[in-house]
């Protein structure tokens, strides 16, 4: 039995890793660029742009972009091998008259800034080369931005103060050193200062071979996932802090709706199967199919409109938002529990009706099949009564199907719970995830998805355990 458990748990690990990889890949494929971050940052809210001058402090946007871990190449980091010639070609493409569209030039310029410390030395070579004077303004700006060091929020409080001050001092110097072609005297002084600054040991490229595989977007994401450093820009907090506040609501809504689904589906399925082809069976089947075909967001909205809206007397049957009354903290615990039940009633109905419909139909079909099997006929022949045949012989075999279905139910419910949270204004994980998706907050989506996947895997593990309980074959094999 331990062997079985261990094997099941080991299976979860590669599944989890695989899901993390897919999750990362999908998000990186759609991930935004710094150019977009900049244009969003200048106040262009959907539908209506505000009249204000474009913001010009690129470092802050760079900070934000780096915090979301989007600045590194996905899997292979060859930035340590960039040469002067590579960057020269890039810079030439950025010059006016190179035939690029504005938006494309804009994007490529910002991509250049993302190269980070690895590009500092080659850019310094370009800046040092008098033959390339035409490229100097663009190159020096790119150089100052590549050399700029971001400090993460958590690091600002944990780094030793002298290190922090040194970083800040270097950043401040960099800001003053952009070469302005209209002012040749300071431009030349700045140029020399930039070249000298590029010799700072922070920009050496000794670890470029190590970085090829170990300093990439994916490894960075995994590091943040493990250390809990995923940072959500839209919430301005670390992702796991946000999730920790929310997951319990979603978790208990999901679990109770599964329990309810089982509690309704099992008796209904058994009853239907035992009275197969009777009028009652046909009526339940037909009406359940009708129920099944009604989408849950529709049912939820209907319930909200008809049971949660105050009538002329100012009273509604059920509360329209939240999972407990605002002042319920001071009520006695039984009263509090009743209040929670009252609040959760409609959300649970909306969440569970679709699952109990499908579960009961599956159980009915499976049970019917079992009831026609040979071993049932044997049992009947040996004189077992009807109840014993159904509950003792057929049902345990049918429950295997139910267990399989329930494991999948957990993930199915997760999407359902999102709608229910929106309709009944419950603060849960689903809502958080939707918010994150709408605002393209990649770290938050990744964090929430990983938690969701974790829950799903736990569901699968529980299902596996239940298999072992229900199926003597498994027990005997691993005995």
């Amino acid at each position: 039995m331990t062997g079985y458990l261990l094997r099941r748990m080991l299976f979860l690990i590669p599944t989890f890793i695989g899901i993390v990889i897919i999750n990362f890949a999908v998000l990186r494929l759609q991930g935004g660029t710094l150019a977009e971050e900049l244009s969003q940052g200048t106040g262009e809210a959907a539908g209506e742009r505000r009249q204000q001058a474009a913001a010009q402090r690129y470092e802050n946007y760079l900070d934000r972009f780096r915090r979301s871990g989007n600045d590194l190449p996905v899997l292979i980091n060859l930035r340590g091998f960039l040469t002067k010639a590579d960057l020269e070609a890039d810079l030439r493409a950025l010059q006016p008259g190179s035939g690029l569209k504005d938006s494309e030039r804009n994007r490529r310029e910002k991509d250049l800034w993302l190269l980070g410390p690895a590009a500092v030395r080659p850019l310094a070579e370009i800046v040092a080369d008098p033959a390339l004077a035409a490229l100097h303004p663009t190159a020096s700006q790119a150089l100052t931005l590549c050399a700029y060091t971001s400090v993460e929020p958590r690091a600002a409080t944990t780094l030793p103060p002298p290190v922090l001050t040194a970083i800040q001092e270097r950043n401040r110097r960099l800001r003053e050193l952009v070469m302005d072609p209209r002012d040749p005297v300071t431009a030349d002084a700045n140029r020399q200062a930039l070249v000298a600054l590029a010799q700072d040991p922070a920009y050496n490229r000794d670890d470029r071979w190590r970085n090829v595989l170990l300093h990439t977007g994916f490894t960075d994401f995994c590091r943040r996932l493990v250390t809990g450093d995923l940072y959500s820009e839209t919430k301005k907090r670390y992702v796991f802090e946000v999730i920790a506040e929310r997951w319990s609501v979603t978790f208990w809504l999901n679990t109770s709706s599964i329990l309810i689904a089982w509690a309704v589906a099992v008796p209904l399925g058994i009853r239907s199967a035992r009275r197969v082809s009777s009028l009652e069976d046909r009526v339940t089947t037909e009406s359940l199919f009708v129920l099944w075909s009604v989408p849950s967001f529709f049912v939820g909205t209907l319930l909200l409109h008809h049971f949660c809206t105050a009538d002329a007397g100012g009273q509604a049957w059920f509360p329209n938002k939240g999972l407990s009354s605002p002042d319920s903290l001071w009520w006695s615990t039984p009263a509090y529990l009743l209040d929670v039940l009252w609040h959760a009633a409609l959300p649970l109905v909306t969440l569970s009706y679709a699952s109990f419909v499908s579960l009961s139909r599956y159980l009915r079909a499976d049970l019917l099949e079992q009831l026609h099997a040979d071993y049932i006929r044997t049992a009947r022949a040996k004189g077992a009564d009807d109840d014993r045949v159904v509950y003792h012989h057929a049902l345990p075999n049918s429950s295997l199907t139910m267990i399989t279905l329930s494991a999948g139910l957990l993930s199915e419910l997760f999407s359902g719970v999102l709608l229910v949270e929106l309709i009944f204004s419950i603060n849960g994980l689903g809502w958080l995830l939707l918010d994150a998706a709408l605002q393209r907050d990649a770290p938050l989506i990744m964090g929430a998805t990983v938690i969701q996947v974790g829950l799903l895997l736990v569901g699968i593990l529980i299902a596996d355990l239940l298999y072992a309980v229900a199926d003597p074959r498994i027990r005997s094999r691993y005995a």
Partner: protein
Amino acid sequence: MNALKITLLALIAILLVVVVVDRSRQPAQLGELNRTLQALTEASRAQTDELKALRQQVASRPTTPDPGPRTPDPSSGNGNPALGANFLMPYDRSRYHPEWQGGTLRSFASSPKGLNPFLDNSSETSEVHGLCNDSLADRPAWAPEKWMAGLAESAVITDDYRTYTFRLRSGVTWQRPACARDDAFAWLRAEVPLTSADFAFALRIVLDPAVDCPQVRTYYEDLEKFETPDDRTLILRWKRPVYTSLASSLGLSPLPRHIYGRNRDGTPIPEAQIGIQFNKHWFDDLKGVCGVGPFQVVEYQQDKILRLERYPGYWGVPSRHVDRIEWMLDVKQPDPQLIAFKNGQVQAFGLSPLKFKSEVLDRKEPRFAAVDPANPKAGRSGELGWERTKRLAFSYLGWNQRRPLFADKRVRQAMAMAFPKERIIRDVFYGLGQPICSDVHPDHTAYNRSLVPWPYDPARAKALLAEAGWTDHDGDGLLDRTINGTSMPLTFAIKYYANSPEWDNTLSIFRNELKALGIGLDLQTYEWKEMIRIYEDRDFDAVVGGWGMSLDIDYFQLWHSSQADVPSGSNHCGFKNPRVDELADRLRTTFEAEARNAIIREIQVILHEEQPYLFFRSTEGIFTWQNRPPGGKPVEKDRWLAGVVEDLDGLHPLRNRAQVSWHFVQP
């Protein structure tokens, strides 16, 4: 027997759940109790302090007679910026009725990311700071184009509008932040007076490149220096006399140096690290807000609630009558919000045009009063009140003047005459919004009333197009013109963003109108991200857009020819007119209100004639609120508000919904 066992088991299970839940609730209850106790201790301590101070005052009371209330600065002005002398209107709260004070105003809002005034630039955060903090000068709700004394008693502008000298009010103290109740923050309990150094600190933070606030910094990038010769004097000096620096100077709010300049334990942060520490300051982690304004944040739970209460130690007279303001942050979808509003859980709410149609026009909700064409205030009388509110924003169709078709002024004018503006506003927007003829709101003082809107006149439009060479030569039903030897039919595409049913309807009406004239129109929808690229690359014949405006009009960004060619410039239609350039430049350095209005009126005439945009409508919304149920049963405390008083009429029409809600009262 079995049934008994099951019942017994179920009972035990329920009991177990009750016990477990009971145990898990205890820490929360204890915490809440603790907070209440601390608040009580704090209140009694404050009272003791006050009593002590009073006793001292009584003991040291001078024998000389009281000089009487301090007279206001006699040199106060009329609120319009002028050189040389104080121009601020005197501090005026005559519209405040002490007898109306009281009650709670609950409304929906979305959760602010954080509450830091510089780092979090959502509109909710700035609204919280507008309530909790004051600025040097105010724009009163009844005359938003004028400036009234606030934290500054007087403001003198000299040096050709480059130097601003403020004299600060005395006796203003910082609010005691909510976290000071905790003994760990006992050092915050001392009373801290507001000085000019707090304004200098705000500027120092904004200008520090390490601080993550590029949006705010743009407004102060032209600041040359700021000085504080003494505790009550603040001098700002700008590099250039630019009109926008006026609002940036007068609207400056102080930042509590005694909080943001210190560590959690009250020790000062080294000067070099203030900037970087500001980005992740402990006070923001505590969700603290500290200002010198009328309200104080007493509770903030992200995605749940934000509660503000009147601050008892406020130096002035608050601008709102309510005692408490609560933002419900837990309901985000419009449908559940409407139901919560109808259930009486919030007092104020806004309706979209579609909901306005179904709830009010179609009378789905009988508690709203019916529309009465004769009486624009009819909506105020129902059990649920409603009123139209105007917004300083407009929408338009932009013509790309780099394309040969729209380079011709006559074609643009013909489009204006083929667009049935009034009908669309009536049928698609249910009457919400005013038709406009320029980018200035019709209620703005600078609006040019002599403009005659282009009439809806397809016949004249057709004639104008014929004049421009567009006629149906080949008889295929489409207008065409021979360009470079080939016959071109008159067809073009309008690009607009997806998910806007109102624009879908508007543009299909327009397409039918154009079809009747012999013009082919292709409608193309895009995601917002893609729309930004389209604006940036000027990749369109015609495009739908909208601008949010400010009361201070600036023509440079939208209409100056230099902005047509810079990357990502806002003049995406490529409008170029030397006279507008000249006027826009002059407007930026003109400060006198009348001279500004004259320039703005002249630009409007040119824009109206040139039609670079088809100016469509100014935005309007529906604001709704709870009225006392007439003859209804006794209501819960604080659940209803008495409705809007007549002061709503005293407001400037362009103050938005947030300001309208200021004028709720409890009788």
